């Protein structure tokens, strides 16, 4: 079945430094739809950004990601981390009929002053 891999469980960095959270996926379908969800403390996950177009950068709230089907990747990036970016980030995949949404194990981002 479909799977999503987020290799980092915890990323700690200093405010102002760039952020990169890794996400790779596996699916037998050629039409993957990739998502990043963010969950702040004591809140529910909410959508950060999404893409289904190969090699096209998508941006939202200072974050960006590009779907690369050749490498099955959808890494999340930001040029300069802010304290308020501290949260749990989930990468997720829909493919095929698209109703099933598979999440990765999540990456906790902790930004220090």
């Amino acid at each position: 079945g479909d799977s999503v891999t987020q290799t980092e469980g915890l990323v700690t960095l200093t405010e102002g430094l760039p952020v990169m959270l890794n996400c790779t996926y596996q699916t037998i379908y050629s039409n993957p739809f990739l998502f990043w969800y963010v969950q702040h403390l004591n809140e529910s996950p909410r959508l950060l950004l999404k893409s289904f177009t190969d090699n096209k950068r998508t941006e939202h709230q200072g974050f960006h990601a590009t779907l690369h089907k050749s490498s099955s990747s959808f890494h999340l990036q930001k040029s300069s981390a802010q304290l308020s970016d501290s949260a749990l980030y989930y990468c997720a995949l829909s493919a095929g009929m698209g109703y099933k949404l598979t999440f990765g194990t999540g990456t906790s981002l902790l930004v220090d002053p």
Partner: protein
Amino acid sequence: GGIITQTPKFLIGQEGQKLTLKCQQNFNHDTMYWYRQDSGKGLRLIYYSITENDLQKGDLSEGYDASREKKSSFSLTVTSAQKNEMAVFLCASRLGSQNTLYFGAGTRLSVL
């Protein structure tokens, strides 16, 4: 806008007990989901429902039942609670496929 309401917010059960979690949405969304959230394991799909009276098993369906008798509601039953089990169960919904998933606030389960 809409809202997803999960009840109860906290659920304490006994080992072996059958426990039911409820979810209501007023988005008029077709598709609804139940996920289990455990620290370090991410969000694991238990059941989902594409439309009223439809049920699809997720990756973690063993030990659970689900019911979608109305478009607006989706319930989850833990058939036999496991001792010392602690998890957050999140209900979610979206319109069709490939659209934004909206989550409820969650039900926190503790089993004594």
